[in-house]
């Protein structure tokens, strides 16, 4: 080995990886990440997997532990077909917001790709998960894996006890409401609050005993008085209108049995766990891409990777941040990697070498040279919408040739409402930011009432914005699912505010 002619300072010189080179590379990367960029990360658990295992992980939200459901099998079937036909490569990496932060490396990757993926996932995403306010407040990195393990086991038990169909009906219906199953404004109770965990353990234990004896002899077992009282107290605490449909149904449904409520709660918790990711695609990917780009270049500058390696890296990197234009057949919206990376590189530029325009738009950061602090502050305290509103610079809008199109369904023409010029910058920026506001993007549906002692009809209201009604194709199907959970009639009105 020593006889190889490679320069000794390279952390790897071969495109094949082994655990020795992985170790050396990880050490070099973390030196840059922790001592230069000063990232703050969870401990890393980096797992090497095969491509089949990657496909497996893919189809269940990338989670190593997920309960069983046919929809994951469907996604698996599609991903597999796409992969085998070569329409779609596998993602280079999957990373999980957990403590320790689990990232997957595929064994097929070259050593350069492994370095890229480690920098990207185990440091970029990892830092973002640990520091971004949405993740800090709304998800529980310590509790998620134990919770999913509990959920998987619980659902399997329910299937044994009550049959596939029964369980599937509840899960199908709950999945239909996942988008309406999150708390957007008030903070949800954390999974790992001490009493919550204790409750969970108690519940699991309770099931342990009741599953075996009590429930077998009493298949229609109802909650005991104490539990019922507790639940009804929670229902009384709900202030209408309630935005979290799954929460309301779980607590107030007149027909669900205790185990069914638990299933609804599992789906709701999973949905809530992923909610921050939906709001931070641009930032999260931007952060990870910025970090891997910086680290790989730094490795090269320090003479720790070879010229061939940096070329391979740049090739992958440029395809990751490729943004097709709107009239390109490959266009399918704005690439979050491209936008996020461009904006973060731009912040660095503004801090280090601002133009007059930048001083005018970003007086507080232009020329300070403190780009590390500015970026870390952004990563910690913004989500996509607010980040774009705050930091999208005229230069980026010009580089990407951004333009806004106003479309009123009633008219035969669309209108270009703003382009990347002096008059349009602010408008384009606010429109682009709004595209990442889930409150606008997703229908805002709330529970407005349910007379639990009377007709028990569940009243829902869609707050229609700008005349954007629900699509009929799925509306009725979803309502049917809600009726499954509610057990009585469900009425949905669409109101323009």
């Amino acid at each position, binding site marked *: 080995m020593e006889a190889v002619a490679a320069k000794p300072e390279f952390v790897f010189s071969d495109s094949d990886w082994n*655990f020795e080179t992985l170790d050396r590379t990880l*050490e070099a990367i973390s030196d840059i990440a922790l001592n230069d960029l000063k990232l703050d990360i969870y*401990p890393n*658990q*980096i*797992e*090497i997997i*095969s491509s*089949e*295992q990657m496909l497996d992980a893919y189809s*269940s939200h990338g989670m190593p532990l997920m309960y069983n459901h*046919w*929809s*994951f*099998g*469907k996604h*698996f*079937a*599609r991903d*597999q*077909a796409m992969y085998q*036909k070569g329409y779609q490569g596998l993602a280079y990496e999957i990373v999980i917001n957990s403590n320790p932060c689990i990232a*997957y490396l595929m*064994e097929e990757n070259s050593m350069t790709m492994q370095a890229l993926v480690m920098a990207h996932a185990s440091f970029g995403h990892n830092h973002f998960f640990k520091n971004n306010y949405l993740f800090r407040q709304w998800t529980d990195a310590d509790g998620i894996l134990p919770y999913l393990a509990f959920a998987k086991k619980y659902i399997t038990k329910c299937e044994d006890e009550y049959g596939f169909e029964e369980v*599937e009906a509840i899960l*199908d219906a709950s999945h*239909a409401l996942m*988008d309406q199953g999150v708390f957007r404004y008030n903070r949800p109770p954390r999974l790992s609050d001490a009493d919550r965990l204790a409750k969970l353990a108690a519940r699991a234990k309770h099931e342990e005993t009741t599953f075996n004896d009590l429930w077998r002899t009493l298949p229609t077992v109802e909650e005991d008085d104490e539990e019922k009282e507790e639940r009804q107290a929670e229902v009384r605490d709900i202030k209408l209108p309630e935005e979290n449909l799954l929460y309301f149904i779980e607590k107030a449904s007149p027909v669900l049995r205790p185990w069914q409520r638990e299933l609804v709660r599992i789906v709701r918790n999973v949905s809530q766990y992923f909610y921050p990711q939906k709001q931070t695609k641009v930032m999260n990917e931007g952060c990870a891409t910025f970090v891997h780009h910086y680290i790989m270049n730094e490795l090269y500058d320090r003479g720790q990777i070879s010229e061939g390696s940096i070329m391979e890296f740049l090739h992958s990197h440029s395809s990751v941040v490729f*943004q097709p*234009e*709107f*009239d390109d057949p490959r*266009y399918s*919206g704005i690439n979050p990697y491209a936008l996020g990376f461009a904006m973060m590189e731009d912040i660095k530029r503004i801090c280090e070498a601002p133009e007059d325009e930048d001083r005018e738009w970003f007086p507080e950061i232009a020329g300070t040279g403190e780009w590390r602090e500015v970026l870390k502050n952004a990563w910690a305290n913004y989500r996509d919408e607010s980040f774009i509103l705050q930091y999208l610079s005229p230069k980026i809008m010009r580089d990407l*040739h*951004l333009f806004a*199109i106003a*479309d009123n*369904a009633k008219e*035969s*023409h*669309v*209108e*270009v409402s703003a*382009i990347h*010029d002096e008059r349009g910058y602010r408008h*384009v920026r606010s*429109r682009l930011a709004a*595209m990442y506001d889930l409150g606008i993007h997703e*229908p805002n549906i709330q529970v407005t009432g349910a007379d639990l002692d009377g007709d028990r009809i569940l009243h829902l209201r*869609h707050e*229609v914005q700008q*005349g*954007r009604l*629900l*699509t*009929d*194709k799925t509306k009725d*199907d*979803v309502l049917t699912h809600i009726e499954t959970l509610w057990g009585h009639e469900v009425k949905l009105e669409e109101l323009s505010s």
Partner: protein
Amino acid sequence: MTPSHFIDRRKNPKGKSLGNRQRFLKRARAQIKDAVNKSLRDRSMKEIDKGEKISIPSKSTAEPRFRLNPEKGEREVVHPGNKEFGQGDRIKKPPKGGGKGKGKEASDSGDGEDNFQFTLTQDEFLDIFFEDLELPNLVKRSLKEIKSTAWKRAGVTVSGSPTNMNLIRTMRNAHGRRLALRRPSTREMNELKERLFALERIAQPGAEQIAEIKDIIAKLEEMDARRRWAPFIDPLDVRYNAFEPTPVETTAAVMFCLMDVSGSMGEREKDLAKRFYMLLYLFLKRRYEKVDVVFIRHTHHAEEVDEETFFYSRQSGGTVVSTALDKMLEVQKDRYSASDWNIYVAQASDGFTQSGDAKRCVEMLNESVMPISQYYAYIEILDERELEVFSDADSGAELWRAYRTFAPAWPNFAQTRIATPSDIFPVFRELFAKDKRQAA
């Protein structure tokens, strides 16, 4: 130091999603079946037992969510890549469905009209393909097995050939016997002998020493005697591995493909026949452990040929169908005794035969073929125009009419007509459908 570590998970079981996949297949069963049947009709038979790309209506496995209707209300969207637009430009919307450069809706979101595409494995495909199909008269004779024998280990015996000697058992027995009979060990004797040699080397031994020498010599003699009647290995110790012949039951079928290859059977007709044979072969293969295929082609005389010749070479001559039956019976008597084999016969023809021959065919079927056959399928290949002409089951070419008359007597006889590839699978299903009624 980073708080990081690697874990090699490659050895972990893969296929974690298989359970979910099964659930999905079960869920979409009906749609998948439709798609499988549809895809079969136009597919070349060579690919039949490969995995199949399947496309089912996404509605069956939709995961509906509330969505905003893109065709209602107002919205403003930002796109990259402006080239010539200025603020205030108005652009005519493309005709309905064009979408103003908006990203395409993912097909799995549940609200797309698109089909859902994925690939079935070969096993999944064939399972669905043959679902609901049952071999006719399977009960009656399929339990017939070939009594072939295989040698199986059956413990140890005291006799056998040296090659089968079981060394471990033999040595173990010998060791036990040696212990029981107190056979003096070589080591013990060597010790005594050494002592003896030592004593003998003394030039002038004392009386005591002489006595010891005598004593040792006596002991050695006794030991030698003992060793002679308690040998290291006695024939009694030897054991041999025993093997016993055991009957192995295998179910086996032979499939006779009879085809008219005279001039009137063109490429199209042969192709159709081939598809039918292939289906039958695949089907049998899933039901029997062993399936032999015999190809018999005929014009005015019949011969057994290989598959290549059967399907691809041409011959000219008249048409005498009964020659094929003769040949088939000959081969059957020669190699496939009815007591050991399930016999399936598939005959394809365009329906023409020498006048008077149809009658002879019927006789042969009645007397010799049907009694030994598990199933006999006759398919008549027509062109589409003829199929219309012969829409009445009773009219038809000579062979058809002759078969019609005797068919009712034999529930395991089926005849049918096909004209296009799309006819084959329905016909096949009809022939083998689980609750098959007598073909109308």
